[in-house]
């Protein structure tokens, strides 16, 4: 009902506007074209300057209302992001100055030089000095921006430090799978035809397959696979090796000011150094629900908007504790190979053995 009501109101408003416009056209014809034009010119000239002033006030109000909701007021949570922010401010200042000047000139000229019988238009077809000035000045400003930009670009895309923790990130419709290399610090081989939706979501080569010409790769046996939440360590560089299982996704890390596509068949990498733990960010932002979210930033299907991952930035101690509780994915797929299940006959000895195994993982991780 309200729908038809809205339509009726719109049509009514249309009719009224149209009738007024039509009537004033008749009036204009009666008045004479020149006089009507002069009057219209005055009104529109006034609107030009009005639009300029209202626009600048509007920009101020808009900024006032929204800036607190953006990342502009938040410190970047990564070392690389701080560079992005610096560059963003420099770019904002340069383009902002140009914006205000050119918009001001545009609407001011429109207002000032509206048609007047007292003035004749000035015949001014070209002036080489002016042309050269406004070719060279933008070129210099842009060179500055390019230099800053490329310096950052090469530092972001350069090799990760050798002490970086490595994590493999795989996108799928619609979620994220993370893999840690485990004790041996080597990611075992995987092949997409080995994928089993049930227990081998990444297709790790942990058994022989003559059909696929695949051999069991023992370095897969200790790889840790988790979904949805990834743990990384504060102040420790982390290198993500990014891939996709189906369509193109994108690892969007807005709090770290970075992102990288996940492309099936072509691995990409991204590294950064997180600066604040999740806990610290909860305090800094004043938001008890704060999360470092991984947003998929590349259209990947109907569930694109829900493809969320979470990064927990923790201290090294917390990380080790978390890692200690993780069991390699291999044992979930082959429970009979799990040391915890090998000697079911002697339960007491078994529990000690399981604890030692877990403890053994820790030193390895500290090294990495």
């Amino acid at each position, binding site marked *: 009902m309200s729908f038809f009501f809205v339509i009726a109101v719109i049509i009514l408003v249309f009719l009224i506007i149209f009738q007024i416009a039509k009537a004033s056209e008749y009036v204009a014809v009666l008045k004479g074209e020149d006089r009507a034009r002069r009057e219209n010119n005055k009104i529109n000239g006034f609107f030009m300057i009005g639009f300029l002033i209202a626009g600048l006030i509007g920009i101020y109000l808009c900024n006032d209302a929204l800036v607190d909701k953006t990342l502009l007021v938040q410190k970047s949570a990564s070392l690389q992001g701080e560079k*992005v922010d610096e560059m963003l401010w420099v770019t904002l200042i340069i383009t902002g100055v140009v*914006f205000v000047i050119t918009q001001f000139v*545009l609407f001011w000229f429109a207002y000032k030089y509206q*048609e007047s019988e007292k003035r004749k*238009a000035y015949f001014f077809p070209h002036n080489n000095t002016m042309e050269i000035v406004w070719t060279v000045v933008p070129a210099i400003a*842009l060179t500055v921006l390019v230099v800053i*930009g490329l310096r950052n*670009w090469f530092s972001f895309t350069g090799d990760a430090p050798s002490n970086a923790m490595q994590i493999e990130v795989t996108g799928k419709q619609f979620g994220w799978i993370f893999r840690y290399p485990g004790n041996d610090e080597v990611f075992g081989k995987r092949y997409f035809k080995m994928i089993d939706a049930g227990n081998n979501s990444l297709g790790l080569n942990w058994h022989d397959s003559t059909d696929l010409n695949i051999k069991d790769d023992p370095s897969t046996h200790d790889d840790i696979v988790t979904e949805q939440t990834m743990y990384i360590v504060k102040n420790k560089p982390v290198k993500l090796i990014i891939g996709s299982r189906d369509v193109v996704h994108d690892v969007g890390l807005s709090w770290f000011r970075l992102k990288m596509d996940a492309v099936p068949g072509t691995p990409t990498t991204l590294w950064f150094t997180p600066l604040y733990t999740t806990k610290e960010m909860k305090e800094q932002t004043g*938001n008890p629900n704060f999360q470092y979210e991984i947003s998929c930033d590349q259209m990947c299907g109907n569930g694109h908007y829900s493809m969320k991952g979470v990064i927990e930035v923790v201290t090294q101690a917390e990380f080790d504790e978390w890692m200690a509780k993780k069991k390699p994915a291999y044992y979930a797929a082959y429970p009979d190979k799990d040391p915890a299940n090998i000697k079911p006959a002697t339960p007491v000895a078994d529990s000690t053995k399981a604890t030692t195994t877990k403890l053994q993982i820790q030193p390895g991780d500290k090294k990495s």
Partner: protein
Amino acid sequence: MSNEAVLGAHVGDVIHHETHHDEHHEHHHHETFITKYVFSQDHKMIGKQFLITGMFWAVMGGLMSVLFRLQLGYPDSSFPWLEDILGKWAKGGHITAEAYYALVTTHGTVLVFFVLTAGLSGTFANLLIPLQVGARDMASPFMNMLSYWFFFMASVVMLSSIFVETGPFSGGWTAYPPLSALGDASPGSKTGMDLWIIAMALFVVSSLLGGLNYIVTILNMRTKGMTMTRLPLTIWALFFTAVLGVLSFPVLLSGFILLIFDRNFGTSFYLSDIFVNGVGALPNEGGSAILFQHLFWFLGHPEVYIILLPAMGMVSEILSTNSRKPIFGYMAMVGSLFAITILAFLVWAHHMFVTGLNPFLGSIFVLLTLLIAVPSAIKVFNWLTTLWRGNIRFTPGMLFAIGFVSLFISGGLTGIWLGNSALDIHLHDTYFVVAHFHIVMGVASMFGMFAGIYHWFPKMYGRYLNNNLGYIHFWLTIIGAYLIFWPMHYEGLAGMPRRYYDYSVWESFKQFSDLNRFISTVAMIVFAVQLLFLFNFFYSIFKGRKLTNPNPWGSNTLEWTTPINPGHGNWVGEIPEVHRWAYDYGKDGKEFIPQTTPVGADESTHH
């Protein structure tokens, strides 16, 4: 090629006939309804066909944006009438995610290609090229007609894809594989995608037929005295637009053909290492999904300029005419158009900074991308200087031209942010990008198109559009456009991603729900204002104030030397000769000097 030959047997005879007997006006005597309004070979009629088809798609595309903005602005409300019109796509009055993505995709595709390419350059290249260079028609009126009808077929196929059971294509207008290649990954990639590709292939054919014609006409069919440096800037812009289209659309088509093979014939150009939920591992290996992105953006980026250049050309013409002052720096304007055309081919990978592109390659694209800001800046400064010390008449066309410059500045400056890869790695695929390209490409070009329509409507239909409705249209649209897109920059600066159906589960992005509602509301109002314009347009075709002066704006260019309602062949009698450039406004104390006026003995030699 002679101007008389192109019109074909019938009309050609009439023209010949007329050149001998100037008094006769017999243009129409052979024409039937079919040859005049449907399969017309008259460039002016074909221009109108492009325009009105473009308007149809603009309404469709606009309506789609209203529907998906409804979801973004009011995610928690339900609208029962949506189910009435969309059926299963809006169960319970709630647009489904599938329908949302289909709407977003189709909105992008039709606005970019059908409205701002066909509707803009199709309309004005057809209307203005022969009229402004002084030709009876295009080099091949028949090919020109085919160009429209291929566009029409593309429209029919695209429209039919909306009614397919599995829905129209829904993977974004860029159609990145594997998503666009795998029906199992997204229902929209089934039949809907086949139809989408067919429509786009037909569109490419249309664009090539048109573009070749435009180039040939401009190069070969200029009237006597119309040297290249005397061409109005509209023609220069349309010329470069056509060159861009002819060189880049075939690359897009090749990309689509490979996609067709991957979709239907088991090849692996774009596919590798894929496991689809519910289906299992696919046999494809060794393809590169990124290859498609290169092929797509090799057109995709020039496409931006295919959209923008005609608007720039028309704005230059309209600003100069209504400032009663020559365009400032004509040669610099032509030079910057040329520079933009060349650079347009060398910047495509700036859409792909985060695909894992080789960083060195990326740096080259940063450099070339920011370089393109230089000719753009020259154009802006020249437009501003054109206004300086002019005697400005605010016709509706002029208002939209000024609005174009304002929007081009706003959207162009954010291009400097996004073209710098180290910033793009933060802002890529956020609402900052949405704001950027909607302002600089979408709304600005739309403004150029409106400026052109208001300015040349008297030439098209021999009547005026209602001025007052034009003023209302302009002011509400520019205010609305800024209200919609300016705040989106802030959403982008919060990292808010594009193409999300719902933000409520995202701790980082959900703070903008009020703003989204505001934007959606303004978008609906602005859409309604456009309907007002359409009403003005169609009403004025039949009932508008009649033209009495064949040159209503006091303009120098050739189209205003034709009769008020020119027939096929444009000029009665001989085509006028041109003696000067198009911008002698306010010279030697004269208000304006048409191009057909011979240079006087005592005239100052400023140009």
